[in-house]
């Protein structure tokens, strides 16, 4: 990683790895969604990220904001459901905050991710503990920021974020859902991982691998 910054190709690699993970694990994500939702989260994410990779492949971009505006809009217009607007908003805000640059340092990457998270909150009005993707995303961002604050680079921060996201995902198991489709199950939603938290864990796993 040149000069401790993250390059545009690395960000594309992030997306490519995320696409790979949700596609490989589509059956698993759908199984999680079968237990407390409507059995489509794997299909939704795989469809969306496949569309994203096609779009990126067809129209190369020159700057980070352009890339993520395209990613966000592709997700918004190809996924539907809850995850489409949420992940779409995440990437749109990420791009807007990152700006017309070609690389990001650790702090800039953290700020962009944080803006994405804020977008998810603004759109979905969930709180941490509601058993949603936020429960993986929020601890991931907190870990990322803490690493950067203590002087680590983006690679180390992403690795910490990935571990925190996985822990956040696992911590959704005992929760009773208060947002999204799983909330209709009431107490019966406890005892299962949240599918969106699982895909968000892949998002940070992909980031960490892309920057490794």
């Amino acid at each position, binding site marked *: 990683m040149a000069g401790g910054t993250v390059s545009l190709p690395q960000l594309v690699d992030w997306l490519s790895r995320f696409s790979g993970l949700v596609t490989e694990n589509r059956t698993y994500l759908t199984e999680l969604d079968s237990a407390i939702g*409507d059995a*489509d989260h794997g299909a939704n994410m795989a469809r969306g990220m496949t569309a994203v990779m096609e779009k990126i492949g067809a129209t190369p971009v020159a700057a980070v904001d352009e890339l993520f505006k395209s990613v966000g809009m592709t997700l918004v217009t190809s996924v539907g459901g809850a995850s489409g607007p949420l992940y779409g908003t995440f990437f749109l805000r990420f791009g807007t905050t990152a700006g017309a640059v070609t690389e990001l340092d650790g702090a800039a990457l953290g700020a962009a991710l944080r803006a994405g998270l804020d977008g998810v909150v603004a759109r979905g009005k969930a709180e941490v503990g509601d058993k949603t993707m936020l429960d993986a995303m929020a601890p991931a961002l907190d870990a990322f920021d803490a690493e950067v604050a203590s002087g680590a680079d983006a690679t180390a921060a992403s690795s910490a974020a990935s571990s925190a996201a996985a822990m956040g995902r696992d911590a959704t198991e005992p929760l009773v859902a208060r947002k999204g489709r799983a909330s209709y199950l009431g107490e019966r939603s406890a005892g299962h991982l949240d599918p969106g938290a699982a895909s968000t864990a892949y998002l940070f796993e992909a980031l960490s691998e892309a920057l490794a």
Partner: protein
Amino acid sequence: MSASVKELEEEVPSVKKLINDPANVLADSLVGVAAAHPELRVDHTNRIIYRGEPTKAGKVAVISGGGSGHEPLHGGFVGLGMLDAAISGEVFTSPTPDQVQEATKVADGGAGVLHIVKNYTGDVMNFEMAAELADAEAGVKVETVVTNDDVAVEDSTWTAGRRGVGITVLLEKIAGAAAEEGRDLASVADLARRVNASGRSMGMALTSCTVPAAGKPTFDLPDDMMEMGVGIHGEPGRHRVPLAQASDIAQQLVEPILQDFDFTGAPAIVMLNGMGGSPLIELYLMYGEVAKILEKSGITIARNLVGNYITSLDMAGCSVTVLKADDEFLKLWDAPVNTAGLRWGV
């Protein structure tokens, strides 16, 4: 590597469905809709079903949409006296904002557009984004009514709230008739909200549905159990209870509806809805049981629907919707309607 990474499983084509590629179910089905209904216009790119004629200038457009797999809802209700357009998402997945925005722009006859949205996080967010876009980009006035009639879900400001289910069918009929009468957007939206507020539903499943892309039942249900308070997406219900006779099932469906809202003092419109996999002979049987209980509770049924109207693919089971109806609702209910799924008076 993540602990939860699983082997890439091969797509098994042996799911027992009348489909080609599971990924193309919606697109392929819309080809059939277009072939079967020359009186409708199908936008295959955006998965929108419109009436054959553009919205009359000055008429409020009433549109709805959601994930597919609930047919005849919504596409089967496009036509005179009901919807102007229906937007389909993938199976059980709400449509995207661009689809909704396109339908909104095209259906607008200058008097604005009513969005009828079932209360699911995905549907609400996607329609919300579409309304923002439609207003910003095309200056189309949009009002939204979110249906949330499912008493199986406990309501609270902390949760996603109740699901929108059966009342959506009745609301589309009544709001569609009001729009056809020439009422303005505010009045149609207000009426639609009153319909939603006066209706309650409760559903149950004997078996799970199977989502084509998933290829197997969403949930497993032992032979001697049923899901009470199930939704229309194969979401497991709130309680898994022992299989019971139709008369007991009717009781378990009607009781929470009557506990949730005071239906006395006005006639009711009642829908006994099939989830898709239960035969009509059973739905009529269930209607008989439900009608008995309602009448015993002092409720006069003025109008009814029995059949598959808002389904969950091939799920076996049924739901009950009760709407407390004033004279206005009844008059609009009786107004002519000419759609694939509901037709009378024309």
